[in-house]
């Protein structure tokens, strides 16, 4: 070690001296790194109500913000195109992205520990918004502040699609607004129109009606379609499976998956609360009632005709299965249309896929006397501000929250990587109306008829459940439903077990 040739021309440094120097440098570097890492930057030029808009946008020039987001298309697109925001405000924004469970974990630790390492947070409505609602800043404070610039299209409920502001921004009280709708994932049906048309005559001979997907197609029809395809496969035909569920390991989407079936039949919901507000004390759950048990039986029947990896596929994997041509139909979130229409990666591209609303309730399956609807569930990702941050950082963060949800930004994302707008005004921007029909350069727009014009409207849209223990609730649902589908317990025992655990969780 430390070998020095005899004829070395430089002055030899003793080992002790070398270690001393090394230790000193390492300590200094370490201390410096910690100091830099723990600091956030904020600079401020005071403005008045009467100041120009430009001055209001620039009042925090030189500030640095960190936004922790899910790895969704808008965040990728905005991260690649932050220059306009920097030019407008002089604020530097670092956008970190990760899978939703990781974001939830990191944001949760940051919020609950009283820190503000992430000034801006991706507020996925139920998984992040519901448990951490009290830790986000009240955006109403900023909307009403005349020393901040405001979006000309407004930030009120009317600026967004129906219910979107409520889904991600309103938690338990109307006094506070915790997030603006940043992106959206609304369920609709993706189906292989080419296969449906090809096999419809044979299907009709056997089942007595055409194999097609409309807004009146019911869950019973979905079962028939899936059973038909499975029979064809069993007879040796080279066809995909008919259907698959989101029953893999991602608990939230597994819950949303069964929620669509339950809500479609009499608008069944888990708790007797206002779905738009949610509740910190939701009271006894409806799981275990006649409707839930009957529909759980139907869910299990559907699983029996689904793709064999039904319990392994979560939402992303299910979409890949559809892209690979292994299933003919999936109820999926409209943000995935862009990946389905990508001819480089999808066998379902090139006009083979059509989009329709979520399946409707089957009248004979309704046990609670309610109406049959096209139960449409959603995840509206909001952007919220960490309330632990200083007041100036929060005000600076508001500028970004407003800019990132403006119609111009959403339009650019839609054109670029395939975003899912949350502002109504985007629909009137150039080319968006035309993009709803093929050929299109905005593939997600192919779903807009099914989603924005139908699925999110009352009475089809289901918003909740917004409860503080939302994530625990999802895990209970996933665990028990998986037990049911894999034959470990029957539907009645499943619903009763869910009821007992959920009521216990809510101190009933």
């Amino acid at each position, binding site marked *: 070690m430390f070998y020095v040739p005899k004829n070395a021309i430089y002055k030899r440094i003793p080992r*002790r001296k070398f270690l001393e120097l090394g230790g*000193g440098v390492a300590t200094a570097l370490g201390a410096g790194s910690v100091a830099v890492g723990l600091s956030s930057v904020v600079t401020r030029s005071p403005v008045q109500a009467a100041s120009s808009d430009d001055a209001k946008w620039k009042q925090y020039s030189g500030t640095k913000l960190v936004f922790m987001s899910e790895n969704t298309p808008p965040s990728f697109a905005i991260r690649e195109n932050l220059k306009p925001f920097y030019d407008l405000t002089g604020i530097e924004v670092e956008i970190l992205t990760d899978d939703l469970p990781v974001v939830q974990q990191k944001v949760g630790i940051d919020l609950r520990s009283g820190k503000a390492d992430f000034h801006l947070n991706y507020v996925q409505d139920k998984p992040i918004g519901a448990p951490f609602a009290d830790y986000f800043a009240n955006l109403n404070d900023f909307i009403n502040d005349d020393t901040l610039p405001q979006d000309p299209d407004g930030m009120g409920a009317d600026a967004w699609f129906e219910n979107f502001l409520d889904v991600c921004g309103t938690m338990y009280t109307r006094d506070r607004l915790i997030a603006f709708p940043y992106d959206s994932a609304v369920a609709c049906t993706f189906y292989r129109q080419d296969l449906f048309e090809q096999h419809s005559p044979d299907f009709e001979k056997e089942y007595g009606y055409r194999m097609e997907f409309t807004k009146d197609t019911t869950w019973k029809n979905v079962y028939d379609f899936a059973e038909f395809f499975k029979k064809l496969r069993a007879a040796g035909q080279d066809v995909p499976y008919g259907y698959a569920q989101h029953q893999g*390991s991602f608990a939230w989407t597994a819950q949303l998956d069964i929620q669509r079936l339950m809500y479609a039949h009499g608008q069944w919901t888990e708790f007797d609360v206002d779905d738009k507000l949610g509740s910190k004390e939701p009271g006894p759950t409806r799981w275990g009632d006649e409707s839930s048990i009957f529909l759980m039986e139907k869910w299990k029947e559907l699983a029996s005709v689904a793709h064999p990896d039904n319990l392994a596929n979560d939402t992303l994997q299910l979409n890949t299965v559809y892209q*690979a041509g*292994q299933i003919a139909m999936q109820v999926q979130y409209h943000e995935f249309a862009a990946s389905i229409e990508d001819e480089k990666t999808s066998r379902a591209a090139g006009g083979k896929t059509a989009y329709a609303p979520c399946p409707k309730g089957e009248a004979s399956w309704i046990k609670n006397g309610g109406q049959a609807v096209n139960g449409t569930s959603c995840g509206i990702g909001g952007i919220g501000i960490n309330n632990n941050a200083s007041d100036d950082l929060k005000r600076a963060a508001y500028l970004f929250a407003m800019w990132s949800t403006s119609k111009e930004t959403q339009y650019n994302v839609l054109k670029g990587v395939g975003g899912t707008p949350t502002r109504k005004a985007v629909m009137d921007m150039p080319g968006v109306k035309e993009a709803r029909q093929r050929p299109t350069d905005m593939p997600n727009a192919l779903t807009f008829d099914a989603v924005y014009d139908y699925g999110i409207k009352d009475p089809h849209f289901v918003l909740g459940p917004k409860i503080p223990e939302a*994530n*625990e609730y999802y895990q209970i649902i996933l*665990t028990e439903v998986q037990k049911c589908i*894999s034959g*470990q317990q029957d539907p009645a025992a499943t619903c009763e077990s869910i009821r007992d655990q959920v009521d216990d969780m809510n101190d009933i």
Partner: protein
Amino acid sequence: MRWTSRVRFLFLAPAVVWVLLFTIFPLGYSLFIAFNKIDQTTQVERVKEPVLDEAGQPVLDSKGRPRTKNVVVRNTVTTTEFVGLTNFKRLFTDPQVHEAIKVTLVFVLIAVPIELCLGFLIALLFNRPLMGRSTLRAIMILPIFATPIAMGYSFFTIFYEEGGPLAFTGIPWLSNPNWALFSVALVDIWQWTPFCFLVFLAALQGVPDELLEAARIDGASGPDILFKVLLPLLQPTIIIVLLLRIAEAVKLFDIPFALTGGGPGTATQSFSFLAFRTGLRFFDLGYASAMAYGLLAVVMVVVLLFFRRLRQSYG
């Protein structure tokens, strides 16, 4: 003491700080939160305050009234309530914990003996002249260096029932509760058998040839040499490997996390996985800490038992 002698403390300091920060503090703090319920609430209030000039006098507006500004006052209140053994008591009544303990035990009982037996058999095979032995040995130990979480994701595609490389078996690797746990064990066996093999091979190569030769001269058969010479000689090594594998296997987390997500149902939800989920998904940190300490206690009991056994055998 010369300053150059004291400098050793400077070099020790990073290690001491590291251990204090990342070992002692988390241990102590997690024990603290296991016994306490910590709640934090933030109350935000907007108040009007007079605007003051540099001399501290109120600034007046054009109508001569004091100008005011809105100030947001944030008050974060942290409450700590001592809950005693409540979290630890829950461990005994929570069916999820019982289920997770069962899953972990079954996993350990499947995976560890197979790893030891397979590792030993392969070591025996490699402990004799074999063409390309060094190359094969290097290939054999590669799985040890793989990241378990990456292995979990890789095996997800291997076990995939529709189109995966093992699809021809028709086995529901991931969707059947029993097969799913076996699949998790299989990945662990694939990864850790090489470790057992490596240690056993080193031990076998340390057995003096004279002993084996003497046994052969005395007429011992192959099984006789295995059971009456090699296994008794390797007993300390076997116990150490068994101890290490059990201590590692009861902490099972990465593979079910990536491969099955703990499902179907709770079929592959290990105790560590449940603790992780409770703490970092549901943020019930007190209960999760109690779970972690429960696991620590179990592992320590296992370790102590083995060390006691070692001391009894080898003084």
